[in-house]
């Protein structure tokens, strides 16, 4: 996905998230965590600060919540700790990209090993 597509998905998701909170049939429900479609699953993690991370994966992939937590830690370490990163612009931090790819590879290897 290129930057424009990511921005499109992110803004779409932000609105859907807001609407879903109002529409939720069960009380005390705070957010959508998982969207299951025919060809993909979309997992969302929302931090207490309102930052949302989402992962698009093959249907039925397990342990995405754990992966999202790992990605959240990477985000705080490599993106937020970078003094030149400005909030609300697309992330272009090389260290973050490298570590993110490594985390996903590790996750994939771990899954195949099971």
């Amino acid at each position, binding site marked *: 996905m290129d930057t424009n597509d990511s921005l499109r998905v992110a803004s779409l998701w932000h609105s859907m998230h807001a609407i879903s909170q109002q529409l939720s049939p069960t009380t005390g429900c705070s957010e959508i965590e998982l969207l299951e479609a025919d060809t993909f699953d979309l997992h969302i993690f929302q931090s207490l600060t309102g930052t949302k991370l989402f992962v698009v994966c093959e249907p039925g992939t397990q342990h995405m919540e754990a992966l999202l937590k790992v990605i959240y830690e990477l985000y705080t*370490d490599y993106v937020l700790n970078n003094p030149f990163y400005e909030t609300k612009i697309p992330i272009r931090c090389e260290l973050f990209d490298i570590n993110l790819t490594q985390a996903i590879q590790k996750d994939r290897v771990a899954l195949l090993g099971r």
Partner: protein
Amino acid sequence: MPPAAPRSGDAIFASVERVNAELFTLTYGAIVRQLLTDLEEVEEVNKQLDQMGYNIGIRLIDEFLAKSNVSRCVDFKETAEMIAKVGFKMFLGVTASVMNWDADGTCCSIVLEDNPLVDFVELPDTCQGLYYCNILSGVIRGALEMVAMKTEVTWIRDMLRGDDAYELQVKLLKQVPEEYPYKDDE
């Protein structure tokens, strides 16, 4: 998968990379000295330290949440305990305690037993109005703002000014839930 339990401040402090304490103290001291040279007015330096702390706080909160696995605090009392027991321990390696709660539970004091920022520091007579550790008040204010709380953080006691402890007063002004850019019924 069951959610992970929140980690204690000690456990997180032990697991992160640490830096030499003297280097930290000297770096902070250099920042304050430079601000005093550039801005000359002690009040301006206080404001600038608070602003710098604020900029740190808005980013630090996510790291705090990621590493400590805490869930949403039920009330402000829990928030204050989190800051004192987990936050200060995790980032500065010091234990702090919460006391002097007011009647509605919106205002308390956080007392630091130890303060690595001020090792070897003595304030000269020309800087008597300076809140040397004002960056800490900004950090707390910034961090809490990102979790929907508007607060006012001020120094009640400061050992560099002759008191017997470091005491920060944290006052909750209001809760500001996230607003969405659309309105109902329009």
